[in-house]
Every structure is written in structure tokens, then in C-alpha cells.
């Protein structure tokens, strides 16, 4: 559902001012009685509170219009054409009745064309209509700038819509990062709880950690970040390369300067392992169509990966028998 904002019908407003009392942003309290769209947060409290029903919540983005069939459009336009003609004839006749007939026909023409696909001013039909006005040759005196202003306003609204969609994309990636971190954090807590013999807490941490993985994977997928395997491998190479070439060298340097030996070791193991990962991802990318099965061996201490079980880890020296086979 699209975001909404509040509008006040001044004719119905009885100045009970409950909207002022309940508005958390002050948007309803304006000297001209028009609710400030820029300040309104769309909570709807004012509309709920208003005793005279003067406030409505209207959407920022309207749904697409009802689709009209060609036959209906054709039949309505034929009638509308006749109404417009009658309006013009009546405009040339004297008297109050002719004036009323002119007006009446104009109102009918408006209503009929509205039902022929011109209900919403921000619809594609309207945009096509405005575009045709600018593109077709028009007589002198035609207010082209007015049409261009309208096109600009409607295009700007489209851009804002895209922007708000981008905001959701940002949020998905923020949520992905948060859930990913929570997953590792709970795993660390689970390990600690296990070590302390707190079995139930350990179990809950593990279950919750898995739950965060589910969330993270879903957010990532919805954000459209999972591409083809070849592209995913390329992305992995880029990520690992950035880490071992730029990120970790800086971190190592600072840890060294600050004399934090534990951090120095953690960073340095990771940096060396990421370089190996980058190389392995690159190899896998080059041999993506290879059918012969490859095995990988993971060092559980530093995260190094080898393609055979080593005597001992080339990065941290852990014995080869500890390596986990994939």
C-alpha cells in the first residue's frame, strides 16, 4: 500500500481542532488551514480524531486506472464529441438558457471523457495527451510552457516514486547487514553458552542465529542481489580482493601501532585467507563448466582453504587433520 498524507476539506472543517492536539509533527497547525504535506508523516491520527470528517488520507501514488475497452472509449468519445459541439453552438446563442445549456454540455463532456480513460491526471493517458500537445504543431499563442510545466511536475513525481523505491532498496541492504551480524553474534553467544554448560541458552542462540540467516537471505534475495553464478563469483573475487589488498592491510597497521596483538593476529589470518579465497574464486570462475569434482579443505583456525589436505596449514600452522573437507 502506498504512503498516504492528510488533507483537510475546509468546507467541512468545523474548527474543533482535535487534529492539532493529536498531530505528532505539527503539520495540521497552519495559518491557511491547509495541512502541510512536507511535514505530514501520514500517521492518520488527525483523520481518526476529526469529529466532522473533514480530513481524509490520500495516497501519494494512485493505483492504475480501470482499463477501458476500445469499444467503450469509441462510443464515449463519439458522444463527447457531440456534447462539445453542442457546447460550442450554445456558446453562440443569446440568453440565460443558452448559457446554462453551454455549461451543462461542458460538464457532460467532462464527465464522459473522464470515463473514457481520463480519470486520473497522473495517468499514462494524460501524459500521452500532454506529450501530443507539445509534439503536434500548434497555432501561435498556444501556451506551450503550461503544458511543459505539467509534464515536468508529473515526471518529477515519477522520479520521487523511484527514489522512494530506492530507499526501500537501501533499507533491505541495511537489514541484510544487521541480520548477518546478528547471526554471527548469536553463534558466538551460543558457543560461549555451550562452554559454560548453559545448554538451553545455547540452543536458543543457535535457533535464533539460524532465524537471522533466514531473514538475511530473504532480504538479500528481495533486494535482487543474487545474480548468475558466474557474476556471483566475480562479485566474490572483487569483495575478497578489496579485503586483502585494502581493508585488512590498514587494519593490521593500526592494530600493530596500537599493540593489540590479538587483533593483529585475527586481521592477519583473515587477510591471508581472503587472498587465498580470491584466488580460488577466480579459478572456479575460469573452470565453471568443469564437471570433474573438486574438494576443498577448510582450516578451522584461520579460515584458510586448500584444494588438498595439507601436512599443516600454510597460514597458521594448524595440523592438516583438523581441516574440514567440503
Amino acid at each position, binding site marked *: 500500500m502506498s504512503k498516504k498524507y492528510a488533507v483537510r476539506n475546509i468546507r467541512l472543517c468545523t474548527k474543533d481542532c482535535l487534529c492539532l492536539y493529536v498531530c505528532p509533527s505539527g503539520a495540521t497547525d497552519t495559518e491557511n488551514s491547509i495541512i502541510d504535506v512536507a511535514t505530514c508523516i501520514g500517521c492518520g491520527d488527525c483523520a481518526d480524531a476529526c469529529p466532522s470528517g473533514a480530513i481524509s488520507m490520500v495516497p501519494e501514488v494512485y493505483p492504475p486506472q480501470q482499463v477501458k475497452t476500445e469499444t*467503450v472509449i469509441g462510443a464515449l468519445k*463519439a458522444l463527447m464529441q457531440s456534447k462539445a*459541439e*453542442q457546447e460550442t453552438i450554445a456558446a*453562440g446563442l443569446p*440568453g*440565460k438558457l443558452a448559457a446554462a445549456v453551454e455549461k451543462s454540455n461542458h460538464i457532460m463532456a467532462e464527465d464522459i471523457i473522464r470515463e473514457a480513460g481520463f480519470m486520473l491526471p497522473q495517468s499514462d493517458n494524460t501524459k500521452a495527451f500532454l506529450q501530443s500537445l507539445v509534439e503536434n504543431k500548434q497555432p501561435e499563442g498556444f501556451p506551450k510552457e503550461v503544458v511543459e510545466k505539467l509534464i515536468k511536475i508529473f515526471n518529477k513525481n515519477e522520479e520521487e516514486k523511484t527514489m522512494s523505491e530506492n530507499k526501500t532498496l537501501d533499507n533491505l541492504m541495511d537489514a541484510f547487514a544487521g541480520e548477518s551480524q546478528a547471526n554471527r553474534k548469536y553463534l558466538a553467544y551460543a558457543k560461549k553458552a555451550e562452554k559454560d554448560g548453559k545448554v538451553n541458552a545455547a540452543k536458543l542462540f543457535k535457533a535464533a542465529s539460524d532465524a537471522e540467516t533466514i531473514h538475511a537471505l530473504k532480504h538479500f534475495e528481495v533486494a535482487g542481489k543474487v545474480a548468475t553464478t558466474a557474476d556471483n563469483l566475480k562479485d566474490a573475487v572483487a569483495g575478497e580482493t578489496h579485503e586483502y589488498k585494502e581493508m585488512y592491510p590498514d587494519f593490521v597497521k593500526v592494530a600493530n601501532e596500537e599493540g593489540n596483538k590479538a587483533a593483529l593476529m585475527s586481521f592477519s589470518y583473515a587477510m591471508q585467507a581472503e587472498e587465498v579465497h580470491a584466488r580460488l574464486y577466480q579459478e572456479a570462475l575460469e573452470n565453471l563448466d568443469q564437471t570433474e569434482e573438486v574438494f576443498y579443505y577448510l582450516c578451522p583456525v584461520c579460515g584458510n582453504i586448500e584444494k588438498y589436505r595439507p601436512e599443516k596449514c600454510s597460514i597458521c600452522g594448524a595440523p592438516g587433520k583438523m581441516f574440514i573437507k567440503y
Partner: protein
Amino acid sequence: MGKYECAVCGYIYDEAQGIPEAGIAPGTQWEDLPKDWVCPLCGAAKSEFVKHGEAAVSIQRMPPTVAGAHTDMEEMSSAQIGALCTNLARGCEKQYKPEEAALFTELAGYFKTVSTPASAGADSPGFDKLLGLIEKDLAEGWPSANAAAIDANDRGALRALVWSKKVTLILKSLLTRYQKEGDAILENTGVYVCTICGFIFIGDAPPALCPVCKVQDWKFEKIEGGS
């Protein structure tokens, strides 16, 4: 004793009841009502009434046709484009978008000036031509458009067609009376137009609810001057 229903507003004349407050005694037969008698609610002529209970209220059908329809923008007349623009201005107003509404109104204003009618000379077709177009629309336009809307199950289109047809019946009644009686029908009385459906009311004050679209009376506009 029979009953007769107004095709515009649904008012029912009951022969048994008459309308005593208007000097029509109970038992007055439909045929005995004066020829120039009009619907006390909406002003429709006697000819717009149908015998109550007879299937005349059902919507006339005719094969839907698009003949003569102009579906391309390029072929729309200035008056048509003007109506489209004021309709879009109304759409913006309803959405509380005053800037866009003002721009569409300005655009409509331009098309209004360029669609100024040929001056009404002595041989101006005028009222006859209006009545001719109305007769043609009632005979062909609505039956064909109604069929199209029903086939497409398009309630919105059907709604606009029902309203505009009723309003057109009123226009027909008024123009016919005007041709016979001239300005007399407008003497010492007001002319009001419903700004929602276009219904025209002649009387001292507009009805509390529009007989066609049922909007409240403050949505009527009084036609001033124009004599």
C-alpha cells in the same frame, strides 16, 4: 388508475392521488394533465414520463459501434480538448493539487478562446441544430454506448451515460419549451446548473438534492445575466 414515472428523476405521478397542493384533483387522468405540465421535481416535460411498471426503464440496446468516433488526440476539436483539460483540472482539485489544477485550467482557457463559435447570425441554426443533435444522440449515441458499457461490464461508463442521458432529456424538454414559449419560461425565476452532472433547474432555488446525481444544492451554480 395508473402511475407514470419521470425518466429523469424517478418522480411518480399517481392518477388516483393527483397533486392537490398544485390544483390537480385526485383521479385526474394522465391524458387530462395540461400539455405543458412538467415534472414537479425536475422540470422534465410530460413526454419524458413512461407508464410505471412498463419496461421502459430498461436500458435501450443497440449494437455498439465506433463509427464516427475520434480516438486520436489529433482529431479532437478545441472544445473537446477544453473539456478534457477542465476534467483533469477537477481531478487535480479533488486530489488537493492546486498548482496542477491551475495549469490545466489555464490550458482549458486557451482552448476555450480558440473554440469560439461562429457568431450567431440571423440564419444561425442555433436551437434547431441543438435539438437535432440531441435527438440523434438519444436515438443512436446512448443506445450504442450503453451496449458497449454493458458488454464491457464498465459500471463507471454506464454511470456517466445514465447521468448524461437524463440531463440531455432535461435539455430537450427545456429547449422544446423555450422554442414554444420563449423567454417567458425564464421570467422572474432563476436558472441553475448542477456542477457535477450538468442538470439544469429553472426555479427560485435549486432542489435540496440534484434529481439526477443526488449532489447537495450548494453544488449548483446560478446562471447570471446572459439576457
